[in-house]
């Protein structure tokens, strides 16, 4: 193997953008071609990929402690708490729910009609996050999750395995959206949850693909066959988009 002085320094920078999917197709193509003829560059790519995986899988998340949230809520005056006994943390989460709830009611009537569903989907996600568990059935096995829906709602949703794409399934729940019971699947990326609701393709359906931001959450809506889907998460728009692509591209069970 020759020395890697032959590798242009720029390629080593671009390599990381390639691994991150941030290169435009033309540059990506050119770089892929150079990687295929430069072993040093290929080795560097495999190291970069190994690092990315290990960071994702092994680094311990830093979850938000309840007292930090509580302190912010008090500081901003989101809740009118004076000194509280030790059950305050629990009470706090209810207080936030009420707070957010009232904001929700206010906003739900403001936007255009077509956005009502997006709003309701965001509400469902928010309610679930506030609940003790964001799902009614906890399972990473789609063969457990899908049957759970049967008998509870008219039609079980399409449940796909996205573990390969880095979005493991964590469970499912039933939401009520526009007066209808709707199956919702819950996936995860790092410590972020993604809710996907599947509903009959009626008036409330999004156009071919719709992107919304509701109360700080990102939403993507789309239709497939006779079903309208909405995905919602606090993930960035880019990552949510890649979730939607993975979900739509996954083979049916």
């Amino acid at each position, binding site marked *: 193997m020759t020395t890697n002085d032959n590798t242009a320094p720029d390629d080593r920078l671009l390599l990381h953008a390639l691994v991150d999917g941030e290169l435009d197709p033309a540059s990506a193509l050119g770089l892929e071609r150079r990687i295929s003829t430069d072993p040093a560059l290929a080795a560097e790519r495999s190291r970069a990929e*190994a690092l990315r995986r290990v960071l994702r899988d092994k680094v311990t998340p830093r*979850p938000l402690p309840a007292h930090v949230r509580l302190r912010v809520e008090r500081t901003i005056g989101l809740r009118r708490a004076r000194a509280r006994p030790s059950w305050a943390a629990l009470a706090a989460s209810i207080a936030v729910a009420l707070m957010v709830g009232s904001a929700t009611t206010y906003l739900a009537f403001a936007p255009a009609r077509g956005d009502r569903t997006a709003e309701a989907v965001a509400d469902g996600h928010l309610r679930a996050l506030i609940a003790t568990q964001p799902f009614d059935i906890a399972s990473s096995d789609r063969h457990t999750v899908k049957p759970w829906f049967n008998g509870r709602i008219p039609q079980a949703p399409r449940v796909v395995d996205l573990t390969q794409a880095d979005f493991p399934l964590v469970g499912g729940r039933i939401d009520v959206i526009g007066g209808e019971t709707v199956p919702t699947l819950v996936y995860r990326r790092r410590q972020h949850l993604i809710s996907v609701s599947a509903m009959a393709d009626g008036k409330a359906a999004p156009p071919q693909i719709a992107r919304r931001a509701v109360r700080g959450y990102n939403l993507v809506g789309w239709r497939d066959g006779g079903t309208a889907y909405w995905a919602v998460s*606090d993930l960035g728009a880019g990552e949510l988009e890649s979730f939607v692509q993975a979900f739509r591209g996954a083979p049916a069970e």
Partner: protein
Amino acid sequence: MNGDRVSDEDDRRRFADVVMPHLGDAYALAHWLTGDAADADDVVQEASLRAFRAIGAYGGRNARAWTLTIVRNTALSWLTKQRRRTVVPVEDLEAVERAQALPGRNGVQASPATPETELIAKADAARLEAAIAELPLPFRETLVLRDLQGLDYREIAEVTEVPVGTVMSRLARARRRLIDTIGRGE
């Protein structure tokens, strides 16, 4: 307390909508930047106040990037104030790097990838976290935002207030340093 009641209520509502969903990310970023849970708590409090005061200026675009920008700036001034860590100007860092890194160290010494790749894959949490904590701040924040918090380059550019090209090069160098550290074995 001064301002009129109605607008205070509006601001609180906006804060609940814009900032609260991202408080978890805010805390994690503060934790990675300060390296300490108690400091992260204080930074989040201070950043929340700043965000609340500035909530009228929120443009309705990317709530997470907006929130994290404030957290990041708060953490940086916190670090400067506390002098817990010496904040080295990036320009100096970059000069040092150029001097020591580019030709040889940046790549492998003509060795095949496998053993190093395996070492990387086997690194445990403690080792990884120590290596991240050692990264100079501009590299650490870029890496944390990308690899632990999943922001895209454009969002990172917004939060750290540098061009996208700088994000790309900082990220590459942060990862290069981690690979050097954890791929070395020991």
